């Protein structure tokens, strides 16, 4: 295999970046759609079943004859799947309103900060350790070269992820401040306080996998938590997993902890004054952050790109893989990006499930949970991880 030149490396990196963005823009509308449907099913509704709202507009035009004949509007046959496009189109097509007294530059830059900070995190997330696929020979400049499973699988990947993810709060706080309005300011302040509080237990709960694997590189962490141990990381890190997931909910401002957007207290929180695609960027950033949290949880605690469920991957690979046929070995014992994506989707479902179940906490309860319970618990959990590291691994 030839060593790639600089041009080739740059081209491959651009290709990987495009792939990551494509992945994001596929999974985010799907999550939006799933949010409507799954939340509906959880509340014994059907969720979105059509985009045919009225007799006017695009959907009315498409459905004009159906309404006239007294029949079902055409788009409703597809069980709300047009909503996939409709949600995104709505963001793009709506009018973008700029408040008169807003700080215009900060008002513009805030959603960009939020969005970029959430996308850039994906640089260090490795979908599969090693090669994702090898380019075919007919590709002009970069033919025959392998494409790695991560854009930049750097040695301090976890630090990068945590650092950049906490930049996202700037977007929220700046948005609240630049709107020059009471509710966004309160929402932004709440969000700042909440994210700063939950950053601590989140990082501490992610320290436990670091202690157990002795590395900060994402792929190495994922590998050693899935196959380095005899069982998946969720078993020795049971509390760690749940604390991490809860802190992830809080970090992404999701339902039990959606203080910044508390609809009945602050109109819509920090994005009250936002509309159109600027609001869309906040919306997208929230869902991308959800995907990031799900990706980290599935990589560190749920075995990452390895398939075999509920632990035993390490044992299985060690004892059984020499005796199995090659196809099964490829399927069961080797990492595949598709399993990783599947676990991400599963965790996104859990996100929506939790949103449909647990009502919002009071603000002081949110703070109390973080400081009084999670931080001591994560410290205990860290010691547990150290014990596991000392005796077992």
């Amino acid at each position, binding site marked *: 295999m030839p060593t790639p030149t600089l041009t080739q490396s740059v081209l491959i990196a651009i290709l990987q970046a495009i792939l990551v963005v494509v992945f994001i823009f596929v999974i985010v509308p799907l999550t939006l759609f799933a949010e409507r449907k*799954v939340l*509906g*099913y*959880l*509340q*014994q*509704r*059907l969720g979105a*079943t059509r985009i045919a709202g009225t007799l006017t507009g695009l959907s009315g035009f498409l459905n004009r004859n159906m309404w006239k004949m*007294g029949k*079902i509007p055409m788009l*409703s046959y597809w*069980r709300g799947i047009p909503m996939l496009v409709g949600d995104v189109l709505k963001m793009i097509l709506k009018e973008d309103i700029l408040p008169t007294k807003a700080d215009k530059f900060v008002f513009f830059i805030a959603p960009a900060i939020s969005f970029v900070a959430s996308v850039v995190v994906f640089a260090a997330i490795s979908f599969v350790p090693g090669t994702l696929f090898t380019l075919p020979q007919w590709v002009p400049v970069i033919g025959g070269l392998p494409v790695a499973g991560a854009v930049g699988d750097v040695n301090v990947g976890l630090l990068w992820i945590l650092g950049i993810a906490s930049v996202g709060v700037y977007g929220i706080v700046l948005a609240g401040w630049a709107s020059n309005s009471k509710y966004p300011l309160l929402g932004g302040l709440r969000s700042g306080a909440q994210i700063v509080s939950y950053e601590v237990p989140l990082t501490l709960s992610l320290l436990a996998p670091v202690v157990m694997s002795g590395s900060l590189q994402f792929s190495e962490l994922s590998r050693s938590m899935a196959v380095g141990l005899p069982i998946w990381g969720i078993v020795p890190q049971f509390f760690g997993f749940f604390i991490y997931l809860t802190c992830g909910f809080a970090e992404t401002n999701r339902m039990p902890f959606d203080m910044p957007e508390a609809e009945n207290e602050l109109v819509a929180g920090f994005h009250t004054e936002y509309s159109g695609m600027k609001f869309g960027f906040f919306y997208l950033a929230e869902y991308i952050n959800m995907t990031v949290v799900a990706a980290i949880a599935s990589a560190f605690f749920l075995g990452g790109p390895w398939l075999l469920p509920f632990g035993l991957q390490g044992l299985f690979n060690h004892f059984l893989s020499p005796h199995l046929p090659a196809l099964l070995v490829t399927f069961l014992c080797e990492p595949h990006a598709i399993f990783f994506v599947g676990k991400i989707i599963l965790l996104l479902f859990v996100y929506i*499930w*939790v949103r*449909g*179940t*647990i009502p919002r906490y009071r603000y002081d309860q949110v703070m109390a*949970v973080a400081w009084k*319970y999670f931080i001591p*618990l994560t410290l205990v959990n860290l010691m547990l991880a150290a014990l596991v590291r000392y005796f077992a691994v």
Partner: protein
Amino acid sequence: MHKFLKTLIPFDIAKGMLITGKHFSKVFFSANRRKVPFHVVSEYPEVPAKMQPRFRGRLQLLRDEAGEIKCVCCMACEKICPTQVITIESDKKEVRKTKLPTRYDFEMERCIFCEFCVESCGFDSIILNHQFELAVYNREDMSIAMDGKFQNMFGISPVAKYSVADEKD
């Protein structure tokens, strides 16, 4: 200590998640599936609503297999009706062995849907069908007769043509 343990081990949250999960699976495995007999939710105005068999809708006169009106004008329903919404006039001349109604009026606006008339009927000639959308634009349409054009005693009214699954039990 008890409170601490309760916070530490979130049984309540797990219970809640189980409940919503049950709801999810119930809807997920029944929604939009034809073979499932009972749907938790249905797309009502487009898909006809299926009522329980004991549902009491509008009063309806039945015909037998030959197309004859089953009613024999015994006046049992008219007598038992608490709000006296049924008016029957019978034909004197004998077309068949029993009498035949020439008028069977039903004032739906005063009807309380108690089903006494159906219970009192000895010939099974009337039922309360499954039509539940009984709104009309004119008040006169509430008075239903045997020969009404908009709606009569023999069929479900056109208001409900999308919404009532036509089944007679």
